[in-house]
């Protein structure tokens, strides 16, 4: 494999590995912290001690997850310098600035209150504790905001011009509020919420199925359901809107997502590939199952709307790995629909009065479906991230800087060694995490835990 002898390719692989590993953890940090705020708030409001015990129980998984998230985030920031030094020299004025903002406004805030949130239950009054949990949540969500500001600017760069091959900012407002930003931020933030809700709901379903503290876990199960009723439809809308936005602002990515090679002629709708296999050499699909006009409708809302095809771009400007982008996108969409179906199914059962301790045990299939949904949010997010990042290639900053021109000059052996080390270490951490998380889950909540005074 000659491609493995290319240090730039290895740097790309390393960034992909480290970013895709890292993204797993904030997904639940962001969503779960918000759920912890809800439980803690409910406890303070209603005095129901179960809510306090929920807050304490889920916090154990939260902190285990958090620690892996923190330490896997650190390498990403440094890799911009170590592996992508030409990118860093060129974009520091904006991109580096935004990472600095993220550190100052998000990570410091999160870290500054995390200790109190986790270990300060008996050391501060409940109101201050709630504030600490709230600040951790705010910090985590702000980190989604700033990192997606930075990433969306790489998708749709704005507010800058180049001077001596360096980014100079003309308008911070335009650069921060670039075209992709609202979609990137919201779609990612809702991905965090969705994933966390199905993790909480799925784990609660497991306890209910095992007949362990059914009353207790019915509370978190219903909370997850209520959350999903709001979050899932919004997330599906955001996904759809982001998709349409891609066809306007990153047409090559849009065409790659749908493996759409030739622009449809005027008056004729673009056909949509349900399944296909691409042939990059011949610039067409080897085979495809298609539906007429559907792509025009999806991308433009018009039966005959024009959708730019990949062949409109020189081959050097086309995203690579069309099949990866195409199928990742489909997996994400299918998971979104599965979440919607599961949410509606459960809602129906609830409306029929079947989500009670006495009757929920009969819905074994429903509970199994929730358990099966635990990993799906993660999978959908990874697929979405592949679509977003591979679809932007060959550019690191869309239309401005090619990935190849952004890399550091490093010896092959050095990058290969660090890449292998990351793969080995992260795989072990992943296995260890699952092992320790399983211990926390199988031990279950401490239902004898006495809460501190609410005042």
């Amino acid at each position, binding site marked *: 494999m000659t491609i493995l002898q290319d240090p730039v390719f290895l740097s790309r692989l390393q960034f992909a590995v480290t970013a895709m590993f890292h993204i797993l953890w904030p997904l639940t940090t962001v969503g779960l912290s918000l759920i912890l705020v809800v439980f803690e708030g409910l406890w303070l409001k209603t005095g129901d001690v179960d809510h306090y015990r929920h807050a304490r129980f889920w916090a154990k998984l939260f902190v285990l997850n958090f620690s892996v998230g923190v330490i896997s985030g650190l390498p990403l*920031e440094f890799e911009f310098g170590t592996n992508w030094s*030409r990118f860093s020299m060129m974009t520091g004025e904006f991109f580096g600035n935004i990472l600095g903002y993220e550190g100052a406004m998000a990570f410091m805030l999160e870290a500054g209150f995390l200790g109190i949130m986790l270990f300060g239950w008996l050391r501060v009054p409940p109101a201050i504790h709630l504030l600490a949990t709230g600040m951790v949540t705010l910090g985590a969500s702000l980190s989604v905001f700033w990192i997606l500001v930075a990433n969306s600017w790489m998708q749709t760069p704005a507010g800058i011009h180049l001077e001596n091959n360096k980014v100079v900012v003309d308008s911070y407002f335009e650069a921060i509020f670039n075209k992709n930003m609202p979609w990137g931020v919201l779609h990612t933030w809702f991905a965090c919420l969705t994933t966390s809700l199905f993790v909480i709901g799925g784990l609660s379903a497991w306890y209910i199925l095992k007949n362990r503290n059914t009353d207790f876990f019915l509370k978190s199960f219903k909370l997850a359901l209520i959350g999903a009723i709001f979050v899932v439809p919004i997330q599906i809308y955001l996904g759809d809107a982001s998709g349409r936005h891609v066809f306007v602002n990153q047409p090559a990515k849009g065409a790659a997502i749908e493996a759409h090679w030739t622009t449809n002629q005027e008056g004729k709708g673009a056909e949509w590939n349900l399944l296909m296999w691409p042939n990059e050499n011949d610039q067409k699909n080897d085979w495809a199952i298609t539906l007429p006009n559907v792509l025009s409708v999806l991308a433009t809302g018009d039966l005959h709307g024009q959708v730019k095809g990949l062949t409109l771009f020189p081959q050097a400007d086309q995203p690579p790995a069309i099949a990866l982008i195409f199928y990742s996108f489909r997996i994400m969409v299918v998971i979104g629909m599965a979440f919607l179906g599961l949410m509606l199914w459960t809602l129906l059962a609830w409306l029929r009065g079947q989500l009670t301790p006495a009757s929920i045990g009969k819905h074994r299939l429903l509970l199994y479906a929730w358990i099966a949904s635990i990993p799906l949010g993660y999978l959908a997010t990874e697929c979405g991230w592949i679509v977003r990042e591979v679809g932007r290639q060959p550019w690191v900053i869309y239309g401005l800087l090619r990935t190849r021109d952004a890399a550091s000059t490093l010896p092959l052996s050095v990058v290969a060694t660090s890449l292998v080390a990351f793969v080995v270490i992260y795989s072990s951490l992943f296995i260890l995490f699952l092992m320790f998380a399983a211990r926390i889950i199988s031990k279950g909540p401490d239902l004898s835990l006495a809460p501190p005074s609410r005042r």
Partner: protein
Amino acid sequence: MDNEIHSLLANIWFLIIGLMLFLYVILDGFDLGVGILFLFTKDEKQRAIMMKSLESIWDANETWLVLLGGSLFGAFPLVFAIMLQALYIPVMVMLFALIFRGVAFEFRHYARNKAPWNLAFGCSSLLASLAQGIAFGGLISGLGITESNYQGNVWEWFTPFSALVALGVTTGYTLLGAAYLIIKTEGAIQRKSIVQAYIAAILEIILMIMIVILASRFNPYFAARWADKETGNYLDLFVILAVFAFIMLMWALRRGFELRTFFWSVIIFLASFTAVTIGYYPYMIPVSITLIHAASSSKTLIFMLAGIGLLIPVMLVYSGYQYLVFRGKVHLDEHTN
């Protein structure tokens, strides 16, 4: 006028970056130091106390590094890029070490066999300290960077001088760790920390003298700064301050003063840190990249000042509050988790 404002802004950011680095070095320094001292502890209960003294604050301490990285990236992109590329190997080693260290807090808690995690925590703390020290030693030796060639050899940081700096930094972290444990513990573990602080402090002052002598002998720019009348006086002053702090530290240890031990250890760091900064000013990568050369435009520096600089006092307040909440001696029986 424009140039003067730009120069002022660049210097303000140089100062802020310096402050962040100093805070990181002190805070994660004692954190890593406690980790190094883990290797010299055989008692499981003592290990538990040491771990507990860090559990509520380690993440906050390490986050100064994240803030430092982002701020350097924005304010001095050239330094961020050139330095990290040239320091690829020690930076990766540091990151891997920090990974193991970070997960050890939670993983050790849940592991049935704690021995591997004890070792992982101690060794990774040591490794991270050595990597940071050698990277810093490499940086002040110039990394083989010239004004026309930003690409040094990836092994340029590996010199006897940087190895000595690595030892100095690691010993310094160990001193801070011992001083922190003196504040947070009592009884046998505290007595042991006092002995360790003595040893680390004496080693530290010897290493520092060696580093200063080597730097002034082999680094012409540093030597010239010292020979210069005005800057030379300042350098003398801070070296004297470091020695004075060392004497006060010995006195504090002898008298069993807890907070003062930590305070004078910090002053040793502050004095050496300031001396290095003055000795190489205005270079960020000696002697090829100055802070003005590397700085972002005034517009970016102002925007960053508004969003980061103004927040620093706020960060200091809530970080300080967290320390305040967890003040006092560590007790294992306290029911928090």
